[in-house]
């Protein structure tokens, strides 16, 4: 397939022709590449100004609204009849809770912001759930337990927090989001919420919490992410 392009108009190149095409191309590419440095800040500002519109459109706008990330072929399904949460490991009284028993624990509510390590953020998420301390109290954790292992029903997903991290004031085991029971995509019926760390530490579809002497690498950490996923201070961000 050669030599079949129709010849372009054969006029002598006119002096006042402007090479606008390449200028537009280069400007667009340069603008786009430079936005790697300012895009998120600019977008956060813009979406703050147009908030009524942004809130309606949030689910489809860039970098606002949730993305549902998962690693297994199928998202776990929640059956309130058969679901159980186990607390095992370095405890005197291992515990198995059903969904009703979970909901009977002291309920707390909080509003916090959720940051994904890939760059998207959801502001002001309204969570409801239980504090880890309230769940652990009856199990009588051993003094040797310095870490918690959060095991997801979405195998092989799991992650760890140190006891110290888990006792931050806004760490929550959440069963409600924005006034509704946690949906399937968000980890129904129970997920971990640790607002100071990136989303991958906020394990969804919790089925077991194990108390251990020390934290190890969770799913993404074995693939190179930071174990202590502090927002703005890990995973290549910040100093």
């Amino acid at each position: 397939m050669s030599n079949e392009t129709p010849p372009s108009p054969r006029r002598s190149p006119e002096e006042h022709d402007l090479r606008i095409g390449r200028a537009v191309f280069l400007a667009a590419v340069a603008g786009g590449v430079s936005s790697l440095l300012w895009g998120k800040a600019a977008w956060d500002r813009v979406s703050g100004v147009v908030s009524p519109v942004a809130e309606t459109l949030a689910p489809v706008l860039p970098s606002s609204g949730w993305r549902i990330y998962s690693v297994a072929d199928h998202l776990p399904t929640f059956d309130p009849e058969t679901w159980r949460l186990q607390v095992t490991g370095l405890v005197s009284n291992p515990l198995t809770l059903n969904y009703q028993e979970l909901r009977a624990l002291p309920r707390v509510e909080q509003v916090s912001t959720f940051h994904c390590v890939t760059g998207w953020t959801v502001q002001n998420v309204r969570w409801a759930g239980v504090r880890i301390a309230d769940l652990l109290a009856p199990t009588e954790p051993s003094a040797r337990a310095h870490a918690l292992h959060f095991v997801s029903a979405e195998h092989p997903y799991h992650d760890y927090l140190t006891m110290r991290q888990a006792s931050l004031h806004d760490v929550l085991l959440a069963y409600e989001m924005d006034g509704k029971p946690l949906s399937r995509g968000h980890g129904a019926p129970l997920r971990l919420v640790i607002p100071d760390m990136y989303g991958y530490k906020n394990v969804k579809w919790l089925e077991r919490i194990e108390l251990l002497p020390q934290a190890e690498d969770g799913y993404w950490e074995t693939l190179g992410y930071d174990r202590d996923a502090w927002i703005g201070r890990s995973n290549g961000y910040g100093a």
Partner: protein
Amino acid sequence: MSYVKRFSRTERMFHWLNALFFFVLFGSGLVLYLPSLEVAVGRRGLVKDIHFWTGVAWVGALALVALAGDRRGLLRTAGEIDRFDRDDLRWLTGRRPAPQGRFNAGQKLNATLTAALTVLFVVSGLLLWLGERDTSFRFASTVVLHDGLAFVAFFLLLGHLYLAVIHPATRHALRGMTVGTVSVEWADRHHSKWKPE
């Protein structure tokens, strides 16, 4: 009715491969992007792989057509798209008459922006892929850029589809991109400065 050739086989191949890959990328991208689709489809790892490798094949396919096809013709076309004369500027600012060549000024801008979007999609897509494997490739704004490009590309495509398929005055142009020829009468009316041989 007599016809003149507007687009070569290489140009048409280039266009339709680009379109085909764009739709696969847009579809798989939507599944990765919209929560409802993500929950319905699942298999995020597989969809991610499809999306990424389709992107790689997209660049490869376009490069192959450009290299194996009528290279000089494509370069000539790029030159036409690059060059804006006074009538093009009049056309862009809504002044008439503004006789146009084989491409009108809007088509030149559309092609230029599409090329820029392609480069940016590839760069930001590679950064997303690399960033997942090595945090030194991470930028907080990569995902904003990649998602934002999809929005720009989508609206550009809507305008393009409207003019190419629906708008009565311009949709004859589609024939040029499918069989390669357009009617002489239409070419005179819309591209009077174009002198096909």
